[in-house]
């Protein structure tokens, strides 16, 4: 227990308490004087200011940062949007004002009234938005009849404009109004209900750079809402400008080539990881999102079977089919189960455990070595290689080649693909691995799944001699004053994700095989060969799940959604690669006939600049 007071202590505390009492009374005196000053001396003035709520706050939206391509060509900018609002308190008599407004603008008066009535709880002193983005002709009329329209305001706000319709829509993304759920998120704590935010692509990922900082001003207005004076002003700060790695010309070419088909194209610089073009088809118009989309418009986008809202280059997963033979070849050569001279006999099928696994070529490839097997895409050669490797060794190489995990590109919703292993199957499906499944996996069928971007990264690594770069899409970020915040060119550490698990001899063999695929007579991609371009590549024809392998179908009769997907991965020039391209066409049937020509056109466009 504590001490009890002695006389001396009591004296001390007494003194303290008296001093404290004086202090408290002094503070209260100050408060009373302040109250007297505000309410009695300045009371009249404050009373006047309170009557019409004269001091108001107007926010000024910052222009969002611009987006350019790698050659500083403008892709996205802002244009002024004239937004029509009403301040109910200043618009008295409201009915007449609205009638006048309706007469001058053609917006139905009933419509306006019902909208106002619907939004209960709107403040009579805050602008209530009637119509966004009125045309300049309407604006002129409203300005001319300003005095018939008290309380009607036109605010200029920057509106996002995507200059090239549908071009790189998935990559750039779009803006749209912030949702109530997003408003609750800690990340968006500085946003308000009417704000637009990036919802997809670069617009979303780089939101914090692009956004800028809101400004505003305190103004004093008179009884009709006209500004008497500006008390304080804080300027809005524009957002940072972003330079993408994509090449507009190449991107446009890619979109043009994909027109009418569902699929994706990824082109990248194999020696840096810069994405030169990334297209997904079908596309959509980003401007529709900014302007506000009708329910039908949204519905038709969302329910389209060809999934226009999905960035197929990173979100869609496909069986890799024959392009996976690159991985099987690397694994076989590195593990020593085959070498440059190993030959397997291909009669057009491979008998394994009482079942026939067929080669795509019915008459067979005869005795075939790894170079020709890659060039002619012999299935039997890789069945045997895969069988000798076993599923787990094969899976280890696939993972080391970057398959089965996201590439790390700075975009949302990247899929990771799938590299099946025996343990994975037991865990996920509960059934033990069948040796026959290894054969399917070895030629890229079975449970295997890759994204077009993963395919592009893989072929780039093969092309550049074995380095897997992390793909990226932003070259440079600059403040509006031109100060560079981020610059990929000067980033000291190149974003190397990993090295391919392959010696240079192995890679030489694989590269030679891919060169033969295009440049030898029997090569599967021989039809894309043209003089003056030195292209290497690998085709792929991915069976769609549900189709029975053993059935003998006349392929022309197949329904669209049962037709196989067509792959082509390639790079050029073969010795000093400048561009790598991965193309997938959904249900395009043959890699050589649908996907490969697109890749060739892109390479041609890029190298002929």
């Amino acid at each position, binding site marked *: 227990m504590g001490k009890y007071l002695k006389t001396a202590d009591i004296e001390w*505390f007494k003194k303290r*308490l008296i001093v404290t009492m004086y202090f408290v009374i002094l503070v209260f005196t100050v408060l009373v004087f302040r*109250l007297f000053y505000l309410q009695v001396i300045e009371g009249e003035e404050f009373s006047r200011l309170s009557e019409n709520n004269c001091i108001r706050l107007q926010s000024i939206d910052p222009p969002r940062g611009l987006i350019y391509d790698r050659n500083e060509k403008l892709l996205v900018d802002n244009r002024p949007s004239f937004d029509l609002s009403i301040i109910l308190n200043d618009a008295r008599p409201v009915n007449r004002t609205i009638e006048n407004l309706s007469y001058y603008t053609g917006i139905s008066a009933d419509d306006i009234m019902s909208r106002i009535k619907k939004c209960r709880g709107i403040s009579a002193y805050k602008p209530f938005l009637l119509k966004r983005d009125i045309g300049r002709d309407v604006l002129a009329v409203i300005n001319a009849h300003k005095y018939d329209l008290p309380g009607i305001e036109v605010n200029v706000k920057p509106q996002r404009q995507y200059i090239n319709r549908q071009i790189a829509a998935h990559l750039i993304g779009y803006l749209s109004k912030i949702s109530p759920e997003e408003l609750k998120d800690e990340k968006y704590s500085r946003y308000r209900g009417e704000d637009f935010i990036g919802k997809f692509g670069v617009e979303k990922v780089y939101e914090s750079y692009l956004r800028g900082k809101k400004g505003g001003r305190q103004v004093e207005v008179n009884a009709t809402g006209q500004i008497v004076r500006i008390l304080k002003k804080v300027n809005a700060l524009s957002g940072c400008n972003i330079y993408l790695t994509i090449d507009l010309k190449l991107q446009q070419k890619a979109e043009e080539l994909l027109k009418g088909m569902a699929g994706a194209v990824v082109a990248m610089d194999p020696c840096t990881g810069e994405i030169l073009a990334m297209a997904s088809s079908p596309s959509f118009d980003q401007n529709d999102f900014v302007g506000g989309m009708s329910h039908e418009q949204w519905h038709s986008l969302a329910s389209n079977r060809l999934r226009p809202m999905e960035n197929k280059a990173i979100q869609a997963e496909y069986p890799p089919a024959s392009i996976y033979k690159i991985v099987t070849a690397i694994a076989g050569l590195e593990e020593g189960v085959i070498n440059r001279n190993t030959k397997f006999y291909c009669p057009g099928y491979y008998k394994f455990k009482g079942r026939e696994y067929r080669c795509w070529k019915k008459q067979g490839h005869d005795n075939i070595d790894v170079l020709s097997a890659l060039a002619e895409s012999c299935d039997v050669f890789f069945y045997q290689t895969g069988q000798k490797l076993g599923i787990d060794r094969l899976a280890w190489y696939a993972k080391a080649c970057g398959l089965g995990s996201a590439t790390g590109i700075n975009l949302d919703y990247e899929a990771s693909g799938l590299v099946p292993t025996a343990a994975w199957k037991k865990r996920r499906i509960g059934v033990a691995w069948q040796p026959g499944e290894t054969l399917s996996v070895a030629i890229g069928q079975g449970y295997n799944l890759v994204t077009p971007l993963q395919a592009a990264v893989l072929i780039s690594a093969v092309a550049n001699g074995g380095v897997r770069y992390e793909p990226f899409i932003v070259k440079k970020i600059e403040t509006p004053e031109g100060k560079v915040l981020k610059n990929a060119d000067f980033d000291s550490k190149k974003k190397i994700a990993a090295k391919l698990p392959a010696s240079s001899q192995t890679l030489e063999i694989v590269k030679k095989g891919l060169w033969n695929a295009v440049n030898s007579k029997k090569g599967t991609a021989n039809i894309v060969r043209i003089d003056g371009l030195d292209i290497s590549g690998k085709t792929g024809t991915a069976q769609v799940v549900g189709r029975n392998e053993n059935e003998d179908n006349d392929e022309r009769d197949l329904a669209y959604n049962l037709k196989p997907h067509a792959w082509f991965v390639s790079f050029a020039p073969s010795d000093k690669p400048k561009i790598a391209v991965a193309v997938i066409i959904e249900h395009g049937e043959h890699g050589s006939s649908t996907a490969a020509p697109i890749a060739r056109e892109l390479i041609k466009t890029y190298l002929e600049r």
Partner: protein
Amino acid sequence: MFDRRLIKFFDWSLLGLTFLIGFIGLVILYSAVMAGDTGPHKILFIKQLIWYSAGLIAMVFCFLFNYRLLEKWAYAIYSICIILLIGVLFFGTYAGGARRWLILGPVSIQPSEIVKIAVIIVLARYYSKNACLTGLRLRELIRPLILILIPFILIVRQPDLGTAMLIVLIAASMTIFVKIEKRSYLYITAFCSILMPAIWFLLKEYQKQRILTFLNPDLDPLGAGYHIIQSKIAVGSGMICGKGFLKGTQNILAFLPEQHTDFIFSVLAEEWGFIGSLVILVIFLMFIIRGLSIAYGCRDVFGTMLASGITALIAWQIFINIGMVMGLMPVVGVPLPFVSYGGSSIITLMICIGILLNISMRRFLIE
């Protein structure tokens, strides 16, 4: 064993003042939440009533036992509060730019309110054991410093600069109330004058900006500065007699985001004018003087320190809140005692009153 003196010394005037302020507070809150279409819902008023009822129970509980037991429990109470504060940092609900609330079953509590009492109790215990006529030496101030610093840092992290500063103010008041050696004063002054600029240089630009805006709301004309102007207009436009109950135009239009919590005094001043505001100020003054005289009348150091600490808590909140609404103080989230909406704040205050009543009626019971 029940002692008849407990009833004899019961402080009916303090209880009466509490009920009076509580009643006025509810009337003002009613106006703040009911006026206009856009104001908060009346559910807040009902909730406040429930909180008051819960507070009354807490108050009764707090004067039933001998307050000297608090000395024994001081560190236990303190530890529980600190654990709650740590809990807020990890599991707190995020709202309005800060993490301040803990959801416990059906209610959400604000541990930073309750921690104020814990700090007062723990300091009262320490000072009652160490106070002496020559004054505290520097060495003896290290422990209280640590006891304050822990909740201070935890609350700054939320961030809630206002409550953190309030805790420092209460602790400083209590420390000055006990005697400090003259030499120690010199050391502390010297130490602070060196440390302050050093810390300032270590801060990042945005942190400096935040402190500058805190001290001078005019630097943020779109946020705090605008609130202060609207608040001053509300107070000033009340003039001498006020606009009348439920008639405050600034109140109805809901210009102030916190009109039922931090800016509630502006509702009072607008609707009841200079006369009404003066009445409230006088009642608050009487309240503080009552608290100080309980401290004065107490015969043990722990009781004196406890009563003065609680009085300091209530007094500082009144000064800061009313000063802020009238544009004399930084804009901080400090509620006006008994008037602002807020469950944790009401419960805390009623516990404070319970302890004051406890000290008052047991002041002559010295075993």
